[in-house]
């Protein structure tokens, strides 16, 4: 076939579509193909330059962001105001999911470290679809609940471990008293 024509009639490969990308996210693993195409119309595609602040600690948080391309750095400030990086996120990661279900302030700041394409899913839209399409909203929220409870378990385990070890000197004294 003439390359010109093949170029015109070339369909966008499935792998390039937003729906396909959303399907790769564990949060949306319950969603079927059709649901993913619907989700495409709900989420917000935003383009960021390198070094742009996405949100800072204490901002009102209203939803989660998925990293479709680029890198995002999550950081907070210690007691002396020094910036300490917590984690680097790459394609397929997401952040801010704790504020999707209930309003809360952002616990850390996020900024891009290179040119990024982020996908936002916000609480306002979730409320909207939970009224109109409860099935889809249900699948997303169950995915979110599963993810959050996994993390909670992990955090509880780590907390237990840390408590068992304890800070060596003070904890030792307490044990002597008891």
């Amino acid at each position: 076939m003439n390359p010109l024509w093949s170029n015109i009639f070339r369909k966008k490969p499935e792998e390039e579509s937003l729906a396909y990308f959303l399907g790769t996210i564990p949060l949306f693993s319950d969603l079927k193909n059709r649901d993913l195409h619907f989700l495409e119309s709900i989420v917000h595609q935003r383009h960021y330059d390198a070094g742009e602040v996405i949100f800072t600690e204490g901002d009102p948080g209203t939803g989660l962001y998925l990293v479709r391309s680029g890198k995002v750095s999550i950081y907070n400030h210690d007691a002396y105001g020094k910036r300490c990086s917590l984690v680097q996120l790459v394609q397929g990661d997401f952040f801010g999911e704790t504020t999707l279900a209930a309003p809360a302030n952002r616990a850390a700041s996020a900024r891009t470290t290179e040119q990024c394409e982020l996908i936002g899913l916000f609480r306002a839209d979730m409320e909207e679809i939970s009224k109109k399409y409860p099935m889809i909203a249900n699948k997303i929220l169950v995915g979110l609940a599963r993810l959050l409870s996994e993390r909670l378990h992990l955090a509880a385990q780590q907390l237990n471990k840390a408590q068992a070890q304890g800070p060596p000197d003070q904890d030792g004294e307490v044990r002597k008293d008891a």
Partner: protein
Amino acid sequence: MPERLLTRAQLLLLFLVLTAGLASGLALFTSASRIVELLQKASTGIFLPILLSLVAAFLLEPVVSLLERNGLGRSKSIFLVFFLAASTLYLGVQLMNPHWQEMWKSLQSDLPRYIGKGVQLLKDVQANIHDHLPFVSEYDLPGKGKAFANRLIADLFAATTGSALKIGGLVLMVPLFTFFFLRDGQKIIRFSVGLSPNRHYEMVHDLVHLISRQLSHFVRGRILEAIIVGLVVWAGLAQTDIRYAPLLGLFAGITNLVPYLGPLVGMVPGLVIALVDLGMGGQFWWIVVVYLLIAQVIVDNFILIPVLISHFSNLHPLWVVLAIVMGGKLYGVVGMIIGVPVASIIKISLIEIRQYRRTFALPGSSHDLE
């Protein structure tokens, strides 16, 4: 040296540049004011249909959503709702049509009589005041009232018969706008919100959502309230021998959109007609009771307002008066009616933004606390 400063050619160039600058500045200025003028001219007739179709979209939105939830497409649901609304309207008009025409004709002949009688009443009241308080200077209250009433009626007739074109335009434009507001409203909002910069995008998105939820609640509540009050007044008046009960109910419903002053204004024609036709008897007092006690106190204040209207959209009476005056200055009688709701809308937006700032200490406002 001085002739080195500017040669003749340079001077000419300078002159030309300055002239060109001045001319283009003038041209810009005139064209700017011309453009503003054109825009004003182009948008004069558009305000009312857009407002009406926004209100209609707010009212129909829940029905469309309901159909959509049951698996119908958005456009199909809108068409279905439109069809239902149109057939209801058509049936209503068909049922009422002979009635209305008759009423309209007799009203045209009756109105001057009512006004004359009303003015007479005013005169009596003034004479009474003058007897008791002789130091009250002679003020031409009846004359003013008569002039005002005549002007109002002239406006009314001019608006209904004179500009059938305008109404035809409304009939054409309102359903069209309503359809697109219903179908693409979310998309339009989404697009406009999407234009905001990345840093504020999330907040703007959330705020717009909160405000639009409050707004739709408010608009739906107000309209429902007006309809129910109008129906109650109609039903109450229909118990008496008074004429034009449906018209009076309609009037009471529309004026009920304006808090505090609206119900008072809405009473006036009913009371005047009752006084003129029925006299100061038992029926007159029943009509007063219907207007004040049943429609306003019991139905509106005790039942409708607590259920339909959230308390924070309430305006201070001072703002109500200001909104009515300003609305009247801008858009006449229509402006008086929509001035207060528009002021409430502004208040709702401001309060939502403020609550937002308070619940989430926004960046910039919280740093000094730390």
